[in-house]
């Protein structure tokens, strides 16, 4: 009985110390050089950041902590000084953030586009329409099920903007359902329920293999999906790693990264997922 007790205690203590030692040094190492990047789910779910971050880390010695959330939450983190740099796609909210002084140096990085996807049967008859707004109106009047992200993400913000332009308030309608989940999961639910939804092309292409949903409407100017990089203002939050944020933002608009973005995804999906736009003006896009 005694034997078990003593050995047990010694083993426990050793294992505990071993665990702590394993975990602790990583933190000490990483402390000074962290850059917290709050970003939208699409940049991570498409795998773009998995390609870019290691290059940045090797080049600058910073360690990027990517926190992948909806654009709404990403900007809330920036506003509270809990992130250093943001990579987001929610135009109006971004402009507000900069106007309020929480974000600085908002720069255009890239774009792709949103698409309206739905079951191949297309009960609302929107296939081939040139206008996203028109398509939304038809879905509403046919009362076909529409899956909304409902999570204040960039995609959700865009979707609301289109409803507003269509002069429809879908809130509370029986055919209008909110998932509160990320893009990938929302697409999967839409597929399961044979519903329509608004998706970014990148996530759709990445998921396509498992789905029975088709692209029904694309190419309207309102469906542009534009990504900006914004540095969090260190004057508002002194703890922000301003140098790291600037380095990351500069990196995103650098020639090297823009070249990578241009061909990213071509090998896997047959077409690029994003189009590099650094240095362009917003109103030049999609033309």
């Amino acid at each position: 009985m005694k034997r078990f007790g003593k050995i047990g205690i010694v083993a426990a203590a050793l294992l505990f110390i071993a665990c702590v030692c394993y975990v602790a040094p990583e933190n000490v190492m990483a402390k000074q050089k962290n850059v917290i990047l709050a970003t939208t789910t699409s940049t991570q779910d498409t795998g773009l950041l998995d390609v870019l971050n290691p290059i940045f880390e090797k080049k600058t010695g910073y360690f990027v902590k990517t926190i992948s959330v909806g654009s709404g939450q990403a900007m809330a983190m920036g506003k509270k000084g809990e992130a250093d740099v943001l990579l987001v796609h929610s135009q109006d909210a971004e402009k507000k953030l900069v106007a309020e002084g929480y974000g600085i140096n908002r720069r255009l990085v890239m774009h792709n586009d949103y698409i309206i996807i739905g079951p191949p049967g297309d009960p609302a008859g929107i296939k081939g329409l040139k206008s996203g707004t028109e398509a939304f109106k038809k879905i509403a009047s046919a009362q076909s099920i529409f899956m909304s992200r409902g999570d204040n993400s960039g995609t959700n913000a865009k979707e609301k903007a289109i409803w507003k332009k269509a002069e429809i308030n879908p809130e509370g309608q029986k055919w209008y359902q909110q998932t509160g989940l990320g893009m990938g999961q929302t697409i999967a639910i839409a597929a399961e329920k044979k519903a329509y939804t608004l998706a970014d092309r990148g996530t759709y292409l990445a998921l396509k293999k498992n789905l029975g949903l088709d692209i029904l409407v694309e190419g309207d100017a309102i469906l542009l999906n534009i990504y900006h990089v914004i540095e969090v203002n260190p004057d508002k939050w002194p703890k922000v790693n301003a140098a790291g944020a600037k380095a990351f933002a500069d990196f995103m608009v650098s020639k090297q990264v823009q070249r990578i973005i241009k061909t990213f995804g071509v090998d896997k999906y047959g077409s690029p997922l994003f189009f590099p736009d650094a240095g362009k003006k917003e109103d030049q896009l999609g033309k």
Partner: protein
Amino acid sequence: MDIIVEGIKQAFVLLFTLDPEVLGITWLSLKISGTATFLSMFIGVSVGTVVALTKFPGRRFVVSLINTGMGLPPVVVGLFVTIFLWRNGPLGFLEILYTPTAIIIAQTVIATPIVMGISLAAIQALPANLRLQILALGATRLQMVWILVKEARLPLLAAVMAGFGGVISEVGASIMVGGNIKGYSRVLTTATVMETGKGNFDIAMALGIILMLLSFIINSILTHVQQRERPR
């Protein structure tokens, strides 16, 4: 059906080709949840034993609190730990949000009441006369407690297993306080959520199977300790 077969196949491919990323994630999960379980074992068993063996005013209230804590929702723990560890939060100076350490803290908070609650019940379930007898045989108080703890070895190890099971399978807190950062704070559960989000259902299934395997191995070891003949 395809996806299930494909998932099982993927799990074995990832395991037997020793995919470095998957191995890293698995190892990190074990380190984090193992450490958290250890911490919660020390706190949980000791506090549980003390509460079981003493009488004080408001004891029932404390026991109710502990028992409620056994069902603490991980996301709520995650939320509170996040807010405390924010840069501009009360413990922001520690700068440990989005690190494995933060996950250990959150998981310890989740596992401790589980271990504590079961330990308390285990010690209290021992016959009251046993204490008197041990003391009558000339044991000191500390020796008595040690003998009681050993006597309750079976349910106490069950407590540890329940604690470990609670944290290794937990995702809400890990993703909030750890951030699911590749190669740094990504564990099996958060990776599974992410791969599901990406639509890589086969890899997600594979990670889930690896998680269950890991859980099975750890619990087998603990069960072995629990069930073996008591050395006389």
